[in-house]
């Protein structure tokens, strides 16, 4: 097929106006316009394991239903992470090895080194720190005035948390936000214009973190992530690019994701006033609301694998070497796996049974930390305010990977006296 250019043009929003075999769900414009939903709906109904022969990222399979995604995610022997975990192929001159993009056994060994920092025992110790910071942030917000939730709350809180986990110089913490954004941004999204610019900023990130490493490698181990990497048996001899890769993984993993679930919760509650009312009447529902927010938002839209051998999936023949994209964002709205999946239901039964963290050996390491942060934010908000009210349309990020918000204008509504 030679009509790539035509096919990749954004085609409005009628998925039935396009022949099935030409559907490419990876177009970042659709995520920016938040109108990708009916495209996945069509694939789930008509072609749940879908081959797109031609896209910006080459040919790829889309896996759109919950059970098929679960199958791919849990068969890490058949579906490798080794060459990257997003639909975009890595730039071969600038490969950043990181454990999320490794197979066994190396994956397990490296992950085990850093796992404890977000393990449940450590989290229990961190809860009071997180709560203090949440309260400080919330109490600094204007009441009754419109402000940007993304910047003032979502970014600020997740960045503070990351700075703590890395023991990163606190005043310079927004560097973490910047590097996280730079690592994942699409070139046409407005942050940077060329891959060279991306490399230059990431090298800056490496230099900064190399200084922190050098500071810590000669000291006794402390509980922060950099110290853990510098002293860990399986990580202390990492090459610079591998160190950078793992730093980026931890920054992106702990930043973009929780940030967008913190914002997604505000959007979801505003779209479902009955659920907001239910929450106001019973704050104990926050516990089940948190996984529901994470499902509803699905802050990472997909993860990708490469087939390691010829195999069958959903009746389709996948060839060795094929790119296979698991669309978590679609599986989380699969009506055959989740009842009324488009509804946001804060007391949903079995709310934890969602795909946002992935399943299997690559399952999100920081899931409990993310849940804890979101829980605390809502506990402290609902104790002080009637609601966080959305004052205008959100601006969505132009990316088929990081599914989230650039801005969200909101206003805090005080409790009725």
């Amino acid at each position, binding site marked *: 097929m030679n009509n790539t250019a035509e096919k990749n043009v954004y085609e409005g929003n009628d998925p039935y106006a396009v022949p099935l075999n030409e559907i490419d769900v990876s177009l970042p414009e659709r995520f920016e316009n938040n109108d990708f939903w009916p495209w996945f709906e069509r694939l789930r109904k008509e072609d749940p394991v879908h081959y797109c022969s031609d896209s910006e990222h080459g040919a790829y399979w889309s896996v759109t239903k919950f059970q098929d995604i*679960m199958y791919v995610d*849990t068969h890490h022997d058949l579906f490798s992470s080794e060459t990257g975990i997003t639909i975009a192929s890595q730039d071969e001159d600038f490969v950043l090895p990181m454990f999320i993009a490794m197979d066994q056994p190396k994956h397990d060994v490296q992950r085990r080194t850093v*796992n*404890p920092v977000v393990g449940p025992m450590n989290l229990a110790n961190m809860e009071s720190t997180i709560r203090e910071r949440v309260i400080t942030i919330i109490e600094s917000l204007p009441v009754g005035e419109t402000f940007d939730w993304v910047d003032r709350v979502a970014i600020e809180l997740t960045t503070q948390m990351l700075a703590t986990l890395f023991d990163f110089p606190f005043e310079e913490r927004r560097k973490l936000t910047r590097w996280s954004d730079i690592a994942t941004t699409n070139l046409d999204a407005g942050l940077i214009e060329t891959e060279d610019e991306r490399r230059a900023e990431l090298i800056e990130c490496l230099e900064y973190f190399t200084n922190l490493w050098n500071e810590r490698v000669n000291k006794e181990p402390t509980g922060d992530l950099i110290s853990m990497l510098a002293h860990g048996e399986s990580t202390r001899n990492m090459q610079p690019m591998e160190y950078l890769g793992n730093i980026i993984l931890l920054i992106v993993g702990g930043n973009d994701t929780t940030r967008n679930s913190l914002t997604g919760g505000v959007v979801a509650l505003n779209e479902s006033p009955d659920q907001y009312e239910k929450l106001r009447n019973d704050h104990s529902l926050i516990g089940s609301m948190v996984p529901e927010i994470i499902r509803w938002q699905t802050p990472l839209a997909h993860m990708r694998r490469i087939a390691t051998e010829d195999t069958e999936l959903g009746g389709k023949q996948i060839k060795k070497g094929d790119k296979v994209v698991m669309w978590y964002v679609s599986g989380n709205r699969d009506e055959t796996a989740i009842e009324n999946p488009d509804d946001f239901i804060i007391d949903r039964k079995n709310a934890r049974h969602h795909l946002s*963290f992935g*399943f*299997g050996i690559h*399952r999100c390491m920081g899931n409990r930390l993310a849940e804890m942060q979101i829980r605390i934010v809502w506990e402290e908000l609902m104790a002080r305010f009637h609601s966080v009210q959305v004052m205008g349309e959100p601006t969505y990020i132009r990316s088929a990977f990081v599914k989230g918000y650039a801005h969200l204008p909101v206003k805090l509504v005080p409790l009725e006296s």
Partner: protein
Amino acid sequence: MPKITFIEHSGEKHEIEADTGISVMEVAINNGVPGIDADCGGACSCATCHVMVAGDWFDKLPEIDAMEESMLGLNTMRETNSRLSCQLDSTDELDGLVLQLPEFQG
């Protein structure tokens, strides 16, 4: 019906006359034993149905397969007697089994 005892981290005991033909994880969930999340629903892919096997029961249980080993290996709360309860079938042979629950499910 085998009797299976779950002991919460707090020490609270739940003695269950367990159904057979389901997993030990499902026995806990069906009987409202708190402390088992089972996020993945029994697919050995989340490690949130983690239990510790009391006494000499550990050696009597079926062996840990590669997937369970992988998932346990990434669990920071793992002990030498850890298992994932979704991988244990509830059978009459398990009569008297005692399982301790961890403080947190990771």
